[in-house]
């Protein structure tokens, strides 16, 4: 199978697809013309702006904005009732229950020890995962930016896992890590001993970090690669004319000019790592015990999966997460803004 053949095949296929899509598009849009023309007769050209905004705003208000406000109400009320009218107001009880700890570093001294275990796990996870993610994606981007044979192929290889669904990612690795899996077979054949990778707390934690880095690294490498390619080539040419050593070029040109992109990558990966849930939930289920239970899983289980649905507690926890995410996002917006203006 040559490259050209597949390329051509995909072109004709996408051409057919595009034509079918175009016909459907025209039919739909033309059908919508009379009603919108009738509305325009009533509200005028200026008024149409509101008509165009309306569907988005309605969906947005109902499913995003309203829940944001309701979340605060949930956090301030108790009981396991879902309907807001049936929930008694309890003030800050949920927060004080969550934050009731003699020693924040000792999970067992906390009233909500599961929450704090999840917080501890998440903090450790975020620290390890983001460090590994940024370091590996940076190295990958730098290598892919060099003069390479088959660069497109290697770029695709590193990017490929990004497209996989979290469930698929988890199952791929579960199959490798299980008791009689590939990794244990390799270990045994090289003289090692069988390891219960997903039943040992530390191993299990290691694999949650490893698998999530595996799954998302290509995404960040791609962003960094774009950042590297945006660095003007004449800077490198000038440095070469001056005979500047390679390492100096790296520290004086590449690093400073890549820094804004790198910061964006750090913060994006922080935001994602705080919300880590899907892959880990399917891979380890938070186990063994609560060794790999992170904060979003705590929220999900407290609100929906446990016998008693402690919605107030979960809402309070999610508000705390929201504050963390908000700070991180503001940081990111600030950095991207500065990067664009400078």
């Amino acid at each position, binding site marked *: 199978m040559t490259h050209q053949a597949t390329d051509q095949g*995909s072109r004709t296929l*996408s051409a057919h697809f595009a034509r079918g899509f175009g016909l459907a*598009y025209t039919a739909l849009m033309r059908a*919508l013309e009379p009603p919108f023309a009738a509305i*325009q007769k009533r509200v005028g*050209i200026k008024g149409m*702006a*509101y008509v*165009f*905004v309306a569907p*988005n705003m309605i*969906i*947005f208000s109902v*499913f*995003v904005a*309203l829940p*944001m406000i309701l*979340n605060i109400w949930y956090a301030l009320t108790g009981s396991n009732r*879902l309907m*807001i009218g049936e929930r008694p107001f309890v003030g800050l009880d949920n927060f004080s229950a969550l934050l009731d700890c003699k020693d924040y570093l000792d999970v067992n001294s906390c009233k909500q020890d599961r929450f704090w275990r999840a917080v501890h796990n998440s903090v450790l996870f975020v620290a390890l995962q983001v460090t590994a993610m940024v370091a590996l994606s940076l190295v990958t981007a730098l*290598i892919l930016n*060099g*003069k390479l044979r088959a660069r497109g192929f*290697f770029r*695709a*290889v590193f990017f490929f*896992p990004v*497209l*996989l*669904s*979290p*469930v*698929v990612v988890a*199952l*791929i690795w579960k*199959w490798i890590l299980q008791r*009689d899996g590939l990794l244990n*077979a390799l270990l*045994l054949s090289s003289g090692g001993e069988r390891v219960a990778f997903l039943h040992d707390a530390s191993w299990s934690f290691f694999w949650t970090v490893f698998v999530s880095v595996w799954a998302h690294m290509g*995404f960040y490498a791609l*962003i960094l690669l774009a950042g590297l390619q945006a660095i003007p080539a004449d800077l490198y040419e000038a440095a070469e004319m001056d005979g500047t050593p390679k*390492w100096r*070029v790296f520290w004086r040109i590449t690093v400073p000019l890549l820094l804004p992109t790198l910061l*964006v990558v750090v913060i994006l990966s922080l935001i994602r790592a705080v919300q880590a*849930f*899907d892959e880990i*939930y*399917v891979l380890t289920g938070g186990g063994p015990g609560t060794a790999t239970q992170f904060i979003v899983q705590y*929220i*999900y289980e407290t*609100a*929906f999966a446990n016998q008693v649905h402690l*919605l107030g507690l*979960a809402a309070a926890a*999610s*508000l705390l997460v929201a504050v963390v*995410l908000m700070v*991180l*996002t*503001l940081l990111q917006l600030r950095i991207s803004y500065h990067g664009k203006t400078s």
Partner: protein
Amino acid sequence: MSLIRALTRTRDQRAMHITDWLTYGFLLVGVVLMFGPALWLAASSLKTKSALQEFPPSFLPMGQKEIKLADKPDGLPVYLVPNGAGQSVELALQRRIGLIGLFIDPAKPDADPVRAKMDEVKPVRELTVAWDNYAEPLRRFRFDRFLGNSLFVTIVSTVLTLLVNSMCAFALSKYSFRGRDAMFVFILSTLMVPISVILIPAFLVVTSLGLTNSLWGVILPPIATPTGVFLLRQYMLTIPDELIDAARMDGASEWRVYWRIIMPLAMPALAVLGIFSVMWRWNDFLWPLIVLSREESFTLQLGLATFQGELDTQWHYLLAMTMMTLAPVVIVFTLLQRHITTGIASTGLK
């Protein structure tokens, strides 16, 4: 220092330098680590149930040869049994009694069984591809249903996402009206509110609308995505206003301006959002997990995740189902690789 040199190398060199070895070494490990696991999944998914239980596993779907005899529903495993004259014959294992096996000759099923010690016989291995792994889940686990649900959610969501967000972006970029900037800031401010933070109230809204266990409950909430509006608005700002004015002079309605002029010109941005929408929805897990609790409304991801709990011993089905979930994404990726990678690189979306 040599590491940095390896990383910053931009020039082609005639001879393979130590830095080249480092580079290609890294890439080789990368290929094995990134591609290997999926390849292993693909190879394993073609193995029979008994071949999957073999340890250590083989890469190719090798399995023990089995022979079906007329009066038995199950296939009998075939072994090489020494026949006393220094040779071995292929016989089927009928029954095991402790360390002794009773073997029958497939050619003469009615003859008396041959007794042999189990540690003296060798299993006969051959390439056995278990296509049944793929066919069976469709019949037994309503896998087709999950596939249909996932397709429905993905297609409807993407069409609605493109429609609703492009209409909004059109108004925000091409009209000046009261409250426009406030609306834009309002939408942008929720960039920092992922669904995982508003699970409970979002579930209340969906419940109040009677949409639990309905695919619409999965489809509707994430349609108005702030990233989508932002992306499309920024792009539409670059479309010259003169085009719109000219169309209005010709008597085109606003709707016509939108679908005849704005949409075709915003195609690159729409393509990026469309590809991402497909990826988001096909792979979505947490929100469907909360909204859908009845099996007939499960999406592929939910069905798979549920089965991995229930079918822990049935890896042969699970692996094949995983492959079937993975396949559409791989196909889309190979068709649209350039759009996806440039889309991500230029927008930072995922």
